[in-house]
């Protein structure tokens, strides 16, 4: 499940009205989500959730599901 918080944050960063995210959604499936936006989204997530990713964690994210799992892990760990 992709949380509304994450979904809204991505929509805001990409300037999108609506998009149906699933766990398998890849960045390239979402309009405007390029490598540049990738980092602005990561930085916004860190700010919004009060967490910090390691470089290798950033590299390990393959789809939106991975991203959500990583956020949940970090938030719970705090």
């Amino acid at each position, binding site marked *: 499940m992709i949380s509304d918080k994450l979904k809204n944050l991505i929509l805001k960063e990409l300037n999108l009205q609506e998009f149906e995210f699933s766990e398998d959604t890849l960045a390239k499936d979402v309009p405007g989500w390029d*490598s*540049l936006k990738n*980092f*602005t989204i990561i*930085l*916004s997530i860190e*700010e919004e959730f009060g967490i910090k*990713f390691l*470089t290798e964690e*950033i*590299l390990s994210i393959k789809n939106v599901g991975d991203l959500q799992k990583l956020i949940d892990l970090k938030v719970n760990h705090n």
Partner: protein
Amino acid sequence: MKICFLSNYSIEFIFDNLRNKLKDINVETEIYYPGYNQFLQQIFNPQSELYNQKPDVIFLSIDVNYYLQNQIQLKSNPPISESSLNQIEQIFNSIEFVCKNLSSSTIFVDNFYLDSNLDLGTLEYNQFELDKFIESMNKRLFEISSSNKNIRVINLKRMINKHGQKNLFDFRLFYLAKSKWNKKGLEELSNLYLSHLKAYLGIRKKCIAVDLDNTLWGGIIGQDGIENIMLSNDGAGKSFYDFQNVLRNYYQQGIILTICSKNSENVVNEVFEKHPYMVLKPEHFAVMKINWNNKVENLIETAKELNIGIDSIVFLDDSKFERELVKKQLPEVEVPDLPDDPTQYVSFLKELDYFNFHKLTDDDFKRNETYKLNFERKKAETSFTDIKDYLRSLEMKIEIKEIDDFTFPRIIQLIQKTNQFNTTTKRYTDAEITKMRNSNEWKIYSFTVKDKFGDNGIVGVFILKYLLVKSAVEIDSFIMSCRVIGREIENAILHFIIKKAKASRIKTICAEIIPTAKNEPCRNVYKDFGFEEFENGKWKLEIDDKNFALPDYFELISL
């Protein structure tokens, strides 16, 4: 406005941020970015997109640390490899090359800083000098900027010093995305670039209206008395003394200072006369509203007396009540929230992004004197019953001159910032004016006005477009500083234009009025002179069979 970014790192992270900030101040931008690390190819190839696009502004954001990393070697001093030195040499060549070959663009260059990851620690300044080498690069940049008038240096190093590298950089991004700015870094970088763009566009405030009690000194003069207010050159009272010094610096830059205070004039005068640490004196203030009236009214009157828009005023007051009142009733006035602690006043004032200049002209230095003289003129005006007698008594001399290198900066300044007496409000850039100068079709003039009270400097610009096929000349722009409005100078200028036109056997003068929210003072200039409106906003005057007499209160000199 067309902006081009040239960089050796991924500067595109900043684009959205900067674009939004420019949108907030109503500047539409088109950004051209040839891609990461393409700047040398773009600059040295005359066929490149860069020269094709001819952007108004180019940002050269070169981080020299990318050329220094892995090239530090402790065999020589500065401890940098030969190949790295060569690359740096090439950067300087490219800066000079682009300045020369794109003279129509304004080029903003970041100055250089040393990334603390390359720091030599305790060896620095004892055996090796890497930091000093960076300084020598910055000195070289300053020299280039002194000899090329289309380059502006951005003090990136100072911004980074102020906030600190640890707060601005994120090395995950450095390794993954070829840019090390974190969110705060991008925000500060964008603010810095915005300040420079504002200076370039002439977007700035003209006047600071200050309160007195708890603003220029601590305490309330009416209650505490002159010996008890906080103002000194030592201790807590020094914060007010320092604050006044910063305000005086703004005064020297040509920012108008005024007072807006609820107080009794005689009590305040005692402070001006007797307090040893009053840095600001009555002569620094163009208008002093010291009374018990509503501050909103006082600010409206201040704007009127100075002939400036109410939106050119920044209002500084410690009282939240007064600030909220002004914010609510005069939303155009800029009302920053002064910090509660006066020791923060100086840093707060310094951070306000309202007064950005790249170069101060003679006129900026002289502006406050002129306002003082205007005050005396106004006083003199009241002793005449007939305006013509008054104008005659001024002994005005108007000198009209075609544009040259010396008048160029002031002309650009007037074109970019004059709002009130500006018939068409066409904001021509350096580049466009340079192009017009080189064309036979256009003539650009500026004029100065002197009178018995003093010299007002360059106060106006008019641009003529010759339409020879129609045997007509068009007044494309007619701009005059608000300082000299109300003295019929516009009529003298029209006489000059007619005289010139007649000499070239031109029969018709055309002109246009494009109304804006602010240019009311010039709307009737053509109508009052006898032009005829042949289309909405378009005016013309047939001159061949008519004689026009210049009023006797002007002396017109054409240089």
